[in-house]
């Protein structure tokens, strides 16, 4: 079930929310938790019920492990349980996610005929595994039982954040579940949650899903071996850079909004990353909860910046490469992660120079490399990525001239024959939309390349000019909700625009669902 699925919006969410409100009036807090847990499991099992087995099994095993850690808190066995738990989690994650990639790699390197195992990756395994590792570590560090079984199960399974994060630390959520006021949401939270959910929905449906075809077309052509012009390639890459931001931040904001509807405040996952003025700044703003996870549970344990210059930079490279691998079992993700590590290292070197660049230059030096790196993230394989870089460099020309010979050909025909040819193009090359939408104001205005350009630039402007909703909707000092007419207008505009577009939109799954 997806957050923008009508079934979710008009059936699942109202039923779960009304049930939650009804339960919260009289019955104990644990019943509210149980109700949300049940709803979360239904949500998770909706598409693939069998996956629930892995989720519940993982919750059960990790909770037992946390009990073992807590019971042996004064003996060295606690650490053994912690390490054992982490290894078990990573083995399961690795088994599902990387065994195929590892087998293929071994077969390629050693020329073996190995058959990669094939099984369906349990949805959100990367997210719930990391969240549980952070719970085990926190239990070990705090030397106490942090949550009761139901609280723990809901902490892992809470449906707004279960599928694609944010990766919540125990301290960010469990105290809220243990609060006496849990189950009694106030109107402020509901209004703010609704507003964030709508803004996220708009980002996903109106922006991300409209950018997707532009990126898909460019990368699809490269995948098929068709040459594309540099203009098309840059447009496609920019579209993807914006698509992935809007797609993922949309999910996060919808998750935040849904959390608030149930009185739970989840951590913010994006802080306008494309406004960053350095790579370091970018990684403080992009997928914040994952960055924090890797920083706290990998970079710092590796030694962080405490063991000298070389170790610091190798730690950055290792951390970012593993972060890349976390996204998927593909060489392209490893290279993407490594490239990000390299950029971070370069950024740290640059800091030594203490040279202050103008705002615009800093922004470009951040945005362009980050965008270029998305090529590895989006390409299906390394060869495709290299081909795409080649197209970006203009090896197939700067602008497409595909249409020109046809126009020249049409000019050479008499009027009736020209019409016949145009008719074929309408029927067989899918020119209908162009003709339908492109009249009067000039075909250019609604023509595909022009529309793509408008969509990409509009989206970029939204990224650069609009404040992030969570900050915008909160008072800066006391953190209370800040409701304005502007927010109300924006939300109602988004709902109306989604309704108008509902027939023609091609809603796609959230990109981060596959991780």
């Amino acid at each position, binding site marked *: 079930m997806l957050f923008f699925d009508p079934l979710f919006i008009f059936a699942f969410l109202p039923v779960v929310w009304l049930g939650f409100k009804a339960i919260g009036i009289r019955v104990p807090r644990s019943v509210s938790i149980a109700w949300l847990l049940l709803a979360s499991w239904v949500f998770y099992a909706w598409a693939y019920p069998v996956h629930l087995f892995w989720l519940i099994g993982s919750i059960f095993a990790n909770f037992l492990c946390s009990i073992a850690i807590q019971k042996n808190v004064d003996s060295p066995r606690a650490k053994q349980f912690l390490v054992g738990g982490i290894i078990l989690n990573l083995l399961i994650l690795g088994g599902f996610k990387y065994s195929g990639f590892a087998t293929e790699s071994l077969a390629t390197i050693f020329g073996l005929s190995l058959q990669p195992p094939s099984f369906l990756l349990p949805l959100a395994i990367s997210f719930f595994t990391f969240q549980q590792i952070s719970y085990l570590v926190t239990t070990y560090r705090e030397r106490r039982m942090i949550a009761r079984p139901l609280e723990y199960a809901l902490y892992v399974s809470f449906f707004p954040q279960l599928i694609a994060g944010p990766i919540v630390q125990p301290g960010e959520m469990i105290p809220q579940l243990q609060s006496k006021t849990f189950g009694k949401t106030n109107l402020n939270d509901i209004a703010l949650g609704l507003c964030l959910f709508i803004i996220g929905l708009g980002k996903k449906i109106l922006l991300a899903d409209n950018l997707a075809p532009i990126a898909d077309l460019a990368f699809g052509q490269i995948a098929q071996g068709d040459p594309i012009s540099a203009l098309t390639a840059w447009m496609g890459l920019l579209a993807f850079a914006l698509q992935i931001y809007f797609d993922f931040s949309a999910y996060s904001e919808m998750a935040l909004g849904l959390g608030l509807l149930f009185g739970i405040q989840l951590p913010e996952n994006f802080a306008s990353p494309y406004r960053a003025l350095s790579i370091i700044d970018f990684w403080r703003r992009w997928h914040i909860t994952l960055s924090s996870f890797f920083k706290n549970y990998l970079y710092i344990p590796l030694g962080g910046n405490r063991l000298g210059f070389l170790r610091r930079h190798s730690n950055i490279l290792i951390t970012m490469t593993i972060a890349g691998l976390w996204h998927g079992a593909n060489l392209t993700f490893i290279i993407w992660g490594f490239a990000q590590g390299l950029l971070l290292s370069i950024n740290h070197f640059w800091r030594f120079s203490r040279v202050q660049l103008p705002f615009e230059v800093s922004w470009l030096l951040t945005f362009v490399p980050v965008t270029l790196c998305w090529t590895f993230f989006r390409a299906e394989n390394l060869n495709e990525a290299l081909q795409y870089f080649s197209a970006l460099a203009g090896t197939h020309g700067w602008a497409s001239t595909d249409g020109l010979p046809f126009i020249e050909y049409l000019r050479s025909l008499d009027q009736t024959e020209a019409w*016949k040819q145009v008719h074929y193009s309408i029927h067989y090359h899918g020119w209908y939309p162009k003709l339908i939408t492109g009249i009067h104001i000039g075909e250019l205005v609604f023509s595909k390349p022009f529309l793509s350009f408008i969509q990409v630039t509009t989206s970029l402007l939204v990224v650069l000019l609009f404040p992030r909703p969570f900050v915008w909707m909160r008072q800066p000092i006391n953190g209370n909700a800040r409701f304005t007419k502007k927010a109300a207008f924006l939300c109602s505009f988004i709902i109306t625009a989604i309704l108008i577009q509902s027939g023609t939109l091609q809603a796609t799954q959230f990109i981060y669902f596959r991780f």
Partner: protein
Amino acid sequence: MSASKFLKWLSCSFATFSAIVVALFCLHLGQPWWPHHHNREVRIAKHHIAESVEGPTIWLQGGSSTWFGFDSELLSSRTGYQVVNLAFNVTMPSEFCFDEIKRFAKPNDIVILPLENSMYFRDYYSNYAANELAIWAPDFFWDLTWKRKAMYLKYLSWRKVIAGVFARFGQITGSFKNQLKPLEPGQVVANAKAHWNGDYQGDVPAYYNYLTINRYGDFEHSNHALWRGLHDYNLMGTRPISEMTREDLTQFVNWTRSNNIRVFMSWIPMARNEKLNLDHPNAVATISRIRSFTDSLNLNFLGNPEDFLVEIEDLYDTSHHLTAEAARRHTETLIPILNKAIANTGDSNPSSSN
């Protein structure tokens, strides 16, 4: 602002935006739009033909393979019925096609439905049809049930709505009307008549238009084959008959029965080509599904798909459009089967039907 006030503002502004959208939608309906006003003019010309016929009539309706696939003059001379070819485009919704017949058919008429195979399986409005009908048949929208209205709106392009609104304002200023040159219905009929009499001197404005149909509503074409495509004619899939088609055809058949109008189903002309294999289990099953469906409505098919296979050289400009000669042969193949069916189902003499 308090949360409750915020929610009130949210509701009020949503209502305002919705009202604006409804207003824009209403404003855009019926706006001529190049080159689609040519389709509007084809319809005007066909309606004129339909209004002009007298006596027992055979109404042909389907997709463009019907528009291109018949020699109605021949059909008329061999059956004694008047013939009007109302067919237009495969994407037109089935209820629209049937409504076109309902406008003109009268007791003792005959309807032949060589529906494109895809029309049996379609459970949506095509974007093309939704956009087109909003331009030149806005009444179609208003006549739909609420459920169908919602479905129709789902397939209407919002860009088209904006473009239509531009056209509306342009029409007010006059410039767009000049640019679009949508003809008044009277002018369309006058030009069409002049064309049928060989007196029309003006330009033929586009490829498919009211000046490329003859006085029966058939497409006027040559034997010149412009383009020949390969196609499986939607017989090789496994899709079930759509509820939409089931509902529409059932309603139409009920209407024809209550008006003493006979309906015959027919197969479209299909070219032998590598994508089509009528012996393939999928094709056999699909044909069987279509037949079972029409059998359930007590509708007879005229002949079998094999009877209407043509050679790829018989195609005019698409895999569904026949050349003039092939259209004549297609009609000749159908005539004996049709005459037999007419005789089996009632009076075969149209003049005695009056």
